[in-house]
């Protein structure tokens, strides 16, 4: 567990998190790896895991009729795959596919939610770490929606 704790503590998301919280979070964590083109999850699957990427890259995709799978974002080292774990009904809205050999910390979402419910200090500390990620994704999505490189309207 100590090894996993240090891996969790070393991830960008948990920088500065107190050791007692690291221990609690690491209790929900395991190491995972995905080969290139292996799916981490598919749309509509239960959002049971959060993936903190240690190495590699992951494409987030949505299937669009007539277009096949469209990648709307890629995520790499230090980034998080899966923010859906925070909100009911805890289901993925997109597919996540490893673009290359990817190693990650997988965190059991239910385990983490239960610990956050039981210890609101932990819950607040984690929310403060996940919220900036959500806001950053929202901002970049807004920029993508502006389609600034497209034809002027």
């Amino acid at each position, binding site marked *: 567990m100590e090894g996993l704790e240090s891996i969790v503590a070393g991830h960008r998301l948990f920088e500065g998190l107190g050791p007692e919280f690291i221990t609690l979070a690491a209790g929900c964590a395991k190491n995972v790896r995905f080969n290139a083109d292996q799916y981490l999850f598919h749309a509509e699957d239960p959002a049971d895991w959060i993936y903190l990427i240690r190495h590699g890259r992951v*494409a*987030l*995709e949505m299937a669009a009729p007539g*277009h*096949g*799978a*469209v*990648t*709307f*974002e*890629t995520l*790499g080292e230090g980034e998080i795959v899966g923010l859906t774990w925070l909100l009911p009904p805890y289901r993925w809205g997109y597919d996540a596919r490893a*673009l*290359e050999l990817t190693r990650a910390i997988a965190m059991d979402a239910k385990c983490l939610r239960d610990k956050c419910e039981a210890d609101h200090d932990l819950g607040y500390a984690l929310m403060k770490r996940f919220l900036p990620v959500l806001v950053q994704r929202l*901002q*970049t999505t807004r*920029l*993508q929606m*502006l*389609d*600034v*490189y*497209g*034809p*002027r309207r």
Partner: protein
Amino acid sequence: MDRVAEPLPVTQPDAMLPRVARVTRRTRELPDTWTLEMVAADEAPLPRYAPGQFTMMYVFGVGEIPVSISGDASDTSRLVQTVRAVGKVSEALTKLSVGDTLGLRGPFGTAWPVADFYEHDVVVVAGGLGLAPLRPALYQLQAERRRFGKLMLLYGTRRPEDILFRSQLERWRRQLDMEIEVTVDHAGAGWRGHVGVVTKLIPRLAVDADNAKALVCGPEVMMRFAASALHDIGLPEPAIHLSLERNMKCAVGLCGHCQFAGGFVCKDGPVMRYDKVRCLLGLKEI
């Protein structure tokens, strides 16, 4: 020396009089974007220019528009400019054939202050067609590669098939002395590169931020967020340079079409320091 604070002198004796140039080569970059190579029709040399400057290109009988120079400033044998067909004049420019003539005024405007970046890490952030005005700076950075620290190009565009100067980017990447990251806003499953806005690449940069310099060119919204992200990782505002785009007509600061607060983009720009324009970038009145 703060080279962008002072506009470069207009290099033609009569800045309002077009010279006649002849197209010697045209290259299709994208379905709507062409690069034209030109020489003076009278065989006399065209004026020298600095990276970042633009000319006014005049299609006879159609009209005149500003177009940034996209070639190598050290190559004085020809003028190279890249045009996207977005309006009547630009469309006419993209339809010029080899041997056709057009009018040229300029070059005009301020330049990328590349010579001030010696010993510094340099980050170049380009969006869409914004890579074209940055290419002359990239040529200069490459030509004097040993004088700079790390050299990084971050390029964002709409889709993989919209990547400008693709073969050149691939060549530069193979040279191994410039880090190049390309990202697209949307991609199909066949694309293995980054997907997402170009600003997302900035926090991952491994640069000596306190001493790094940045050149940014692209749609203004993209530049605003890119400059902000560069500042967030530690680049001082005066170290960040943007190339602005406005509706330029006279190109010498007389007509007022490109007025930008108290200045003119044609004369005081297009290259401007971020600290000088930051407060103006979000103003819709400007």
